[in-house]
């Protein structure tokens, strides 16, 4: 760092005042850098602390769990907690089901939200401001408050009132029971009412608003229709926004407990399995479930098993994801 300065001094390019000034600023910069790294390291530790804690606890045997001298590294390593949890929640089957539900819901949710967000960003129509205000309103109302009426609605689903036409023919409205089917998750996602859809609509709207109009104008002049312009020009250029939204939507569907617990009888996803883990261990007839420490260790093992696929996915996609964030600079 200083070698260059010293060299320039020996060559007679700098006088003494200049060099002392230079060294001072450079030392300041160096100190700032070191401070920054120390700060970042501390923050990283704070962020990673719970993960390290989970891994550490989940690998311990019972004596280690009671041993106050074991802080981070277990004395006796064991994978028994993982094996137990793996059996209890039927891991592979649950994993496949979770991946299926999450992938489809995410796909439907994000693609619909992009279309809707584009509609709000680029077109003028009556009541647009009001409708967008309602989008914000739908973010604010938590899903819990409308979940019970929705549950009743899915129990006898009448296709948004269309089923009432059935009265004309059979005297009874045409309804089907959607509970326990994946449609309880897919249907809201298809119509922009999935998990935090409002937020995605907002993000897409902000993103499309920031894109230059010239892109679309060029496409219109070339004779592209509105929808084709959206797919060919806007959606392709919005890939960074898509990647972030897909990641978030995937994570939120994956971690969703409330909705899937309400709509499905069985513990179909990993999160619901995690929520009812204690009962599951009990039903397996493990007589040592009564040990509170062991349950804690098993819970941590189950947590790791639940988020492990997400972490692997994230590490695999990490490069694209970070690049997608970097690339927003080119577009915006």
């Amino acid at each position, binding site marked *: 760092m200083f070698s260059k300065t010293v060299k320039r001094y020996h060559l007679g390019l700098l006088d003494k005042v200049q060099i002392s000034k230079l060294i001072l600023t450079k030392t300041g910069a160096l100190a700032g850098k070191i401070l920054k790294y120390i700060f970042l390291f501390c923050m990283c530790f704070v962020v990673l602390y719970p993960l390290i804690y989970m891994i550490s606890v989940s690998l311990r045997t019972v004596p280690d769990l009671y041993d106050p001298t074991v*802080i981070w590294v277990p004395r006796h390593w064991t994978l028994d907690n993982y094996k137990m949890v793996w059996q209890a929640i039927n891991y592979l089957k649950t994993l496949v089901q979770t991946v299926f539900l999450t992938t489809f819901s995410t796909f439907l949710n994000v693609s619909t939200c992009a279309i*809707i967000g584009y509609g709000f960003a680029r077109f003028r*129509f009556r009541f647009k401001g009001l409708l967008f205000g309602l989008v914000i309103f739908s973010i604010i109302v938590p899903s819990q408050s409308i979940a019970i009426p929705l549950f009743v609605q899915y129990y006898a689903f009448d296709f948004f009132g269309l089923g009432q036409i059935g009265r004309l023919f059979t005297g009874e409205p045409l309804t089907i029971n959607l509970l326990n089917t994946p449609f309880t998750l897919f249907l809201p996602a298809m119509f922009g009412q999935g998990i935090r859809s409002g937020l995605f609509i907002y993000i897409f709207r902000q993103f499309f608003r920031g894109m230059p109009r010239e892109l679309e104008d060029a496409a219109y002049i070339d004779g592209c229709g509105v929808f084709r312009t959206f797919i060919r020009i806007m959606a392709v250029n919005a890939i960074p926004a898509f990647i972030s939204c897909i990641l*978030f939507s995937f994570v939120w569907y994956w*971690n969703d407990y409330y909705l899937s617990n309400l709509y499905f009888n069985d513990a179909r996803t990993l999160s619901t399995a995690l929520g009812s883990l204690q009962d599951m261990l009990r039903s397996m007839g493990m007589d040592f479930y009564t040990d509170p420490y062991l349950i804690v260790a098993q819970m941590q093992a189950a947590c790791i098993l639940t988020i492990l696929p997400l972490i692997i996915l994230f590490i695999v996609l990490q490069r694209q994801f970070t690049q997608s964030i*970097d690339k927003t600079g080119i577009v915006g």
Partner: protein
Amino acid sequence: MASKNRRGMNLERRRSLAGIMFVLPWIIGFVGMFIRPLVSSMLYSVSNTKISPRGMILEYIGFVNFHKAFFSDLYYSQYLFGEVSGMVSNAVIILAFSLMMAVIISGEFKGRTLIRTVFFLPVICGSGVVLSILNGDVMSNSIISGERASMLFQTKGIDSLLLNMGLNYDLVTTLTGIVDGIFNLTWKSGLQILLFLSGLLSVSPSLYESAKIEGATRWEVFWKITFPLVTPILILNVVYTIIDGFTDYSNKVMRYILNFARELNFSYSAALSWIYFIIIMAIIGITYAIINKRVVYTVE
């Protein structure tokens, strides 16, 4: 001339029709899967609900539940006041913290990919059951020997030290409250950091270059260029942070409301949630109105 005018009208109309087509799925979903259940929940709040094999039976009772919430419920207004006042300070801290973190990790330095990956981890696992298990376990002074490690995030000795130094009690509790909540803070600002980061990276470098040539200091550059240009993201983050804080599982009011729902007292829980949402709406409306005037949009 006249035909040209008509064509312009037509184009505009066609555009607006296309816009409605784009938004149509949302309108259907909003009416069918949002307004309808919302109206039902409104009806629950002014009726007595009974569950029968045929479905919910409603009996109109008027605004008894709302009256009860304000005048005879011991806990509700207390929780409500606590959460609302705590929310405001929390939101400010989360926003300032996430903006600062985003500024730090947006620069070029060695290992920034690694650090960004680490900071996105809370977003990945920081929701749902995992977080509530962690909350129950890591934060509440865990029963396992991790106790010493979790002391890291507590300020047991420091507050009395600061008080002995003659500092104001409120100031000390606020400060130690922030430190105690640092785990929550980092794990709750994942999304905000990410959104700020994408906003920061979209600021054109030529602006910074010209500012440098003009001789602006880094402080000036931040307040005159960076900050105004991330205000669109800021407003999104403000709204998101407020909502996230209010609908969080650890929120006392939310839990209180859900408890009644679990006891199948749907009508009272619906009434409580209605009061709660009206307050949230008012807060968000006011904040949005204040900030929206100062938002800088580069396009349009």
